[in-house]
């Protein structure tokens, strides 16, 4: 243990840090946080506001269109968006209750990973559902715009149908790849880092 005492005596010599004064400390207390939980909270708030805005716009739009397939499609989309809104509210409440001061390091890392994993899974499930929904909606709007019969008639041409299928596959694969890349860039690398640290804590 003599060696550790040597290290302690070296360690105790450090005093050369720039002490912050009371004014600086008070200022720091009012700044916004940059922890992963705070960033996550900001993302969820942004998504909540965006979803509510979509609900309002679509809700108003439904009052201007006649009863029919389009209205029922939009109403189904509204139900889906409302369920997302409920999820976001629940998520914000959970994130607000997150407190790193009550847990030890290991428990804190585990809880953080659970929350980030749940968020990533939700995202993946979301765009697995939403992208095809938006794609079909886009087609429906396109069909209604150009006349439904004319739109269906185009698919009688095998070349047109084949091109449509190929372009649809490229589009879907493209958006899934970009979203996966973006999520990995946003949280994926950090999750990996946290997992490695947590693994290091295994007895």
């Amino acid at each position, binding site marked *: 243990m003599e060696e550790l005492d040597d290290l302690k005596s070296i360690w105790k*010599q*450090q005093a050369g*840090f720039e002490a912050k004064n*009371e004014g600086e400390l008070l200022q720091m207390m009012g700044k916004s*946080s940059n922890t992963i939980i705070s960033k996550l909270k900001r993302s969820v708030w942004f998504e909540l506001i965006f979803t509510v805005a979509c609900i309002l716009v679509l809700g108003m739009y439904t009052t201007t269109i006649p009863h029919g397939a389009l209205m029922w499609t939009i109403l189904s989309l509204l139900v889906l968006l409302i369920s997302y809104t409920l999820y976001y509210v629940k998520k914000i409440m959970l994130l607000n209750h997150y*407190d790193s*001061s009550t847990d*030890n390091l*290991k428990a804190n890392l585990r809880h953080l990973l659970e929350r980030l994993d749940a968020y990533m899974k939700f995202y993946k499930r979301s765009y697995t559902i939403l992208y095809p929904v938006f794609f079909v909606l886009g087609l429906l709007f396109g069909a209604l715009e150009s006349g439904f019969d004319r739109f269906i008639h185009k698919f009688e041409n095998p070349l047109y149908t084949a091109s449509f299928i190929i372009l649809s596959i490229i589009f879907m694969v493209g958006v899934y790849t970009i979203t996966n890349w973006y999520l990995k860039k946003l949280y994926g690398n950090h999750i990996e880092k946290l997992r490695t640290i947590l693994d290091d804590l295994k*007895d």
Partner: protein
Amino acid sequence: MAGEQERYFVNLVNEHQGLIHKVCNLYESDRDARNDLFQEIVLQLWKSFHTFRGDAKITTWMYRIALNTAISGLRKQKRGLQTEDLNERHFNFSETSTDDHEENLQKLQWSIRQLSEIERAIIMMALDEVPYDEIAETIGITQNNVRVRMNRIREKLRKLMNP
């Protein structure tokens, strides 16, 4: 104007800010990143101030939050000095002049920065004379595990400081 609670908090942080600086120095090698981490730790301490029980040791509470913030935070991984730079120099504990003290300290800090995040947390608390039961509680491992890890850390530091 700051309220009574703010003043009390600022006084506490002021009194123990050396602890926060040590955490920042060990987890960030870049000056700006260290300042950002310092600010984040102060902010997290303030947000969690309601959880601090007056009967508990303030340093234990501060270590827990400071380490949680530093280790779980989003930041780019940067290392301190390059290994080859330090391999050229030899570290000697027996020297006692001020310059050597400074060099020893720098070398110790550099060596600690080469350890894993968890090892850094353990050795920092051990060097600050935090008892093993408190280290175990802060990290979330057993006291026995702290002892085992300390042996490994000492071995690693010996190799790093005497290449």
